[in-house]
């Protein structure tokens, strides 16, 4: 009896155990350190809010706001691009072709992200490919400065970096929708737009959830694209934390990380409250739960 219980629960328990040991414990350590104090260059255990005060009072808060805004922009833009593509692949194209296109979307990402970021600077620079073509074709007289080292450049870098991470989960949930539900909606007389809004879109919410999370947290944690493609001194949270560690200010680094964690968890909480669990977990939840 016990053996059967063990066999049934061992497999699901493994990842939870892994998460607790290798994620929760180090995280607890980080949160603890954020309250410690710093005497000279030595870190001592204590319970103080000085690091948090330093964070909220300083320039780092601006970095946080900028990371947040850039991530939201990139996520929304990414969704607007990825959803139609995923819809097209799930409904209007043969499964073989869809899989091929999805694979094609993942190929560029085996190339290191640093090399891809530099490739973009080569394309977007004043003497880069795009400016050269624009001037050669006569569309502009001067190179466009705002293509690189600007918010636009960072947005381009972020969106193109996270496209496959968004298309795939969207396609996954769209292609899994029971077609008979859509057919039923037609048979009941709903026009295509209404069918989409009332049937397809809600059923694809798990994919939207996954895609948004991937894009948002991915962008928020980016450390290379901001410094390689961003404007003067453009940086995001990863850079800010490393900079604090550069002067051994571990409590401050831990405080920044905790603030980021708290912000993300709050967003997740908002999502949980706004949507019923069935909306983004779908049929994983047993009926009647």
């Amino acid at each position, binding site marked *: 009896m016990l053996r059967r219980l063990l066999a049934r629960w061992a497999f699901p328990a493994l990842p939870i155990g892994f998460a607790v040991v290798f994620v929760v414990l180090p995280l607890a350590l980080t949160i603890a350190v954020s309250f410690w104090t710093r005497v000279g*260059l*030595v870190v001592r255990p204590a319970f103080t809010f000085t690091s948090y005060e330093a964070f909220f009072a*300083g*320039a*780092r808060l*601006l*970095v946080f706001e900028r990371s947040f805004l850039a991530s939201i922009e990139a996520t929304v833009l990414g969704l607007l691009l990825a959803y139609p593509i995923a819809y097209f692949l799930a409904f209007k194209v043969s499964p073989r072709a869809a899989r091929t296109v999805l694979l094609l979307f993942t190929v560029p990402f085996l190339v290191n992200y640093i090399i891809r970021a*530099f490739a973009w*600077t*080569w394309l977007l*620079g*004043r*003497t*880069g490919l795009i400016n050269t073509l624009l001037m050669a074709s006569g569309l502009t007289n001067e190179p466009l*400065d705002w293509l*690189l*080292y600007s918010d636009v450049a960072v947005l381009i870098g972020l969106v193109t970096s996270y496209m496959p991470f968004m298309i795939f989960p969207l396609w996954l949930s769209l292609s899994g929708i029971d077609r008979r539900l859509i057919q039923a909606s037609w048979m009941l007389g709903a026009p295509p737009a209404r069918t989409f809004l009332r049937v397809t879109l809600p059923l694809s919410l798990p994919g939207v959830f996954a895609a948004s999370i991937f894009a948002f947290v991915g962008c928020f944690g980016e450390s290379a694209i901001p*410094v*390689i493609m*961003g*404007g*003067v*001194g*453009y*940086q995001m949270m990863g850079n*800010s934390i*490393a*900079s*604090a*560690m*550069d*002067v*051994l*200010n571990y409590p401050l680094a831990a405080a920044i990380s905790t603030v980021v964690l708290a912000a993300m968890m709050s967003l997740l909480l908002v999502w949980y409250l706004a949507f019923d669990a069935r909306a983004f977990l779908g049929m994983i939840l047993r009926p009647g739960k």
Partner: protein
Amino acid sequence: MNSLSIWTRRDFVRIGLASAGAASAWAAIPGTARAAGGTVNFADIGVGDPGGDWSLFTKAANGWNVNLVAIGNAPSAILNVLVAGGGTASYDVINIVGGMQKPLVDNDLIEPLDTTRLPAWSRDRNIAEFLGKGTPGFNFIGYQDKLYGVPTVLQGDSFAFLPEKTGPLDSYAALFDPKFKGYVALEDNYTTAGQKTALYLKHANLAKIENPADMTPEELKTVVDFLVEQKRKGQFRVIWSSFQQAVDLIVNKEVYVIDCWEPMVFVAKSKGVNAVYADPKEGYLLWAMAAYLTKNPKRSAEATQAAYALLDFMLGGWYGAKITLLRGYMTNTDAPDYAKAHPDQFPAEGAEKVAAITANVHRKFAQGGTWQNRWPKHVDVYETEWARFKAA
């Protein structure tokens, strides 16, 4: 009929056990044992890699190999890896930009050196000339009067420019000249760009700064206020944070004046771009790279001897000439003579280049300027103020 039904539960269990066995076999191989025989684990920031060929060292050190691990140079990267990542046990020698001894020694990460075990030490005249005790240069190899590092690279920094676009330039004022608005780049580093700006402001009498190498919080605030004002006026195109980025800026002619390191000019020239490294009248920013011995009580006596052999090797002519040729920095005084005396290993133009670079950097050190200070007294304030500059 789906194809997976031919698999039974037993198959999955077998596969699972096999992969677990393979995974644990992989995990059980300690990283260092991949090389046969003794290996010195050498963490380096990329500059100290002589192209992968350590055969001359192996011959001189009774068959010990060198395993080079590429690490980052940021203090956070180095400290993280040494303190948390088990680095003192995984690395024997680390070769980084010097000046960080304080946090390294305070955290018990490096050992003082016994120069009697380094026969090449006395042959390197740079040490006595520029890095003696009591001089600011000593801060790159020692701490509190004790010697910790072997100087592997020495260099004097200024800035680069494209003469066809700017004409001849001889002062850091060019970085802030409104003529080049939007075509200037600075390094994202308060101990180089920040210190050079302070040097300029002091010489131009635009600010009262005692010692650009170790500024007070008030002096620092003046420097950063100046930089923020320049940034708001649109003077800078970008603040670069990697070698690759700076080289691209020059080679693509994205900027005309750039605060950078000399090797970038060499790379640009090799790609056909006419870039010149300036000789500013305010002087140069002097610095050195040093190789340290990590503190590992569990290291065997043979391994320590091999590590000392590596440190000695890096003070030698072959290594020095190779690094000067590959990276463009001055290394040690044996290098030019060695390169000339071994035409089989260094072709004639290579030897000339080594001699030219060494002579040029020597001249810069003789002229002077300000020694880079990587760990100023108020380094916290430096970091916060620089963050303010970047966020402005």
